[in-house]
């Protein structure tokens, strides 16, 4: 076990799978000689050569479509979006071509799309987005969003081995800010499984991505207030792990949902609706959502700071909810 960053864990998962399976290859902008805008594929070009680490033209729809074609032939392409924001340019290929293929004619499309996402890096409206919500109403897609090095590596391996198209949301803010000891060897984190990152009895906080750490911070503060927060990391956003969500909500009877993406139409809405529909009798209070406001991600530090959900927001919501 070695301590590695979130970014190194992603690289490790990717590199391992490329060594294990010669059908795995990478394509995207500047992933080769340059090693990727965030250096996730640094050294890959030297190890695997230009045929398996392909620097594409600036054409997201084209190279995503190409990955889909290769996947139909049994390859396992991993596409890098330089920033997840640019995935809008490949939206059509993903939802039209990849997501519906197996349903329509039984042909599976095992691609992984790496989508570096999220804010607090002063990226402004086009380099800070959380685009997961745009893909959430797309049966046939799987969406994962690890929050720790362990999950980052395990979900990368699971995504590559999965036979469905998977968008892998990797949070840019966590790249070099989170480290953990993770096993060197082969393991996967199965798609479709949430994890309780901190067990607790009073309130279930359901979240994912960078917000997991905000939630854990809040949990620590709330300990002092005598409120025992259970922190659930969804890890897989589509399909949602209802079993873990419901298990927790049934235990605590109070739910807060937290995400960095803007509030209206976020994944939190679905989590809330599921609980309001299926666990109504277990609820002791309103289902609270904490999320960014309904605006694009602003650039200037005071604006971005205002925009981002914070541990303090969780703490005050939890206190209000605890009083119910």
């Amino acid at each position: 076990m070695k301590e590695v960053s979130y970014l190194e864990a992603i690289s490790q998962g990717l590199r391992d799978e490329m060594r294990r399976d010669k059908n795995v290859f990478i394509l995207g902008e500047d992933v080769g000689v340059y090693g990727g805008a965030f250096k996730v594929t640094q050294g890959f070009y030297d190890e695997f050569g230009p045929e398996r680490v392909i620097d594409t033209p600036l054409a997201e729809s084209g190279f995503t479509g190409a990955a889909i074609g290769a996947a139909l032939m049994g390859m396992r392409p991993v596409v890098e979006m330089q920033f997840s924001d640019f995935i809008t340019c490949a939206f059509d290929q993903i939802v039209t071509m990849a997501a519906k293929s197996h349903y329509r004619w039984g042909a599976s499309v095992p691609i992984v799309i790496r989508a570096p996402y999220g804010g607090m890096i002063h990226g402004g409206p086009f380099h800070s987005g959380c685009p997961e919500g745009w893909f959430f109403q797309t049966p046939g897609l799987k969406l994962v969003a690890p929050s720790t090095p362990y999950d980052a590596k395990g979900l990368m391996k699971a995504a590559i081995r999965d036979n469905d198209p998977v968008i892998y949301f990797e949070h840019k803010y966590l790249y070099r800010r989170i480290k953990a000891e993770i096993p060197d060897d082969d393991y996967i984190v199965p798609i479709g499984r949430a994890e309780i990152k901190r067990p607790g009895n009073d309130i279930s906080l359901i979240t994912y991505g960078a917000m997991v750490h905000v939630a854990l911070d809040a949990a620590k503060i709330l300990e002092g207030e005598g409120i025992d927060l259970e922190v659930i990391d969804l890890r897989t956003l589509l399909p949602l792990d209802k079993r873990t969500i419901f298990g927790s909500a049934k235990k605590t009877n109070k739910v807060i949902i937290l995400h960095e993406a803007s509030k209206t139409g976020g994944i939190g809405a679905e989590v809330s609706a599921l609980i309001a529909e299926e666990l109504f009798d277990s609820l002791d209070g309103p289902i609270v959502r904490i999320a960014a406001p309904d605006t694009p991600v602003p650039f200037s530090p005071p604006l971005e700071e205002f925009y981002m959900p914070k541990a303090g927001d969780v703490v005050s919501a939890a206190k209000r909810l605890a009083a119910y």
Partner: protein
Amino acid sequence: MDIEKKDLLQLYYYLKLTRSLEDRITNLYRQGKIVGGVYTSNGQEAIAVGYACALEKDDIIAPFHRDMGAFLVRGITPKRVIAQYLGKRDGPTKGKDGNVHVGDLKLGVICFVSHLADNLPVAAGIALSFKLRGEKRIVATNTGDGATSRGDFHEALNFAAIHKLPVVFFCNNNQYAYSTPLRLQMAVKDVAERASGYGIPTEIVDGNDIIAVYKSARNAYARAREGGGPTFIECKTMRMHGHSEHDDAKYVPKELLEEWRARDPILRMEKYLIGNNLADEKVLKEIEDKIRIEIDEATDFAEKSPYPEGRETLEGVYADPIEEEVTVHERGKLSGGNITRVA
């Protein structure tokens, strides 16, 4: 390049089969038996039949909506095609999708999506996989004139050109995109001019001359197979029916249709076969009879084929569905506690 007699007769057979099958489907449509719309390749059959017959068994096609001839050549039977049009379970998509959205990986046919030109980057990617694996297979893909205006056309041709991928791009230039004439689709005379901008060799052929299409295809395939990269082949033709069978296509000048009717690819092939003593009226009649029986049987089969059951709606969204219950959790302990924050 000489084409053997048996190959010429095969071309003719598939031309006829395509025409007859689509005529049958149009009839069924008029009888109200078809689910949804009907898109035919009437008058343009030589393109799909020609490019498909020129392929090898292991090659792949990524077709578009006027490629019935290519489906048939690849082995998607009239039975399955009609079943598909009727929304029956024996169609290649088991009723999940309809009409020309036909695909079968075992037969090397990629299932067309409606979104035009989406198939082109996919075709490039298929070709890429062949190149990466060192396989001598190639991809043929086809698109309408109108669809070449889409960005995916641009991105696909460029990618294929850069990597010299074994893919041949056909364009069925039937002079209309639905009601929109070529001059509102592009400011150049030939679609092929677009392709030159990528550094891809282009060719323009008479799309109603199946022998010309077939020969151009063979040449391009041979080059692609040997690592020579992609080719763009524009096949000039004319859409003889409406955009789909509900469309009377009043916007098409009558003279244009008349001009092209005289160039019908099937009549032309018949003349060629007879003129070169490759077949006589009797042989052609035999082929016609055989096809009629085949299509009667197919119609019968498809009409008797069961519909899928309502609940089948829920099947097959994922290749790897996620079980609701898990027995073993992947890890005994939680990871939340071990994390170091750097910043």
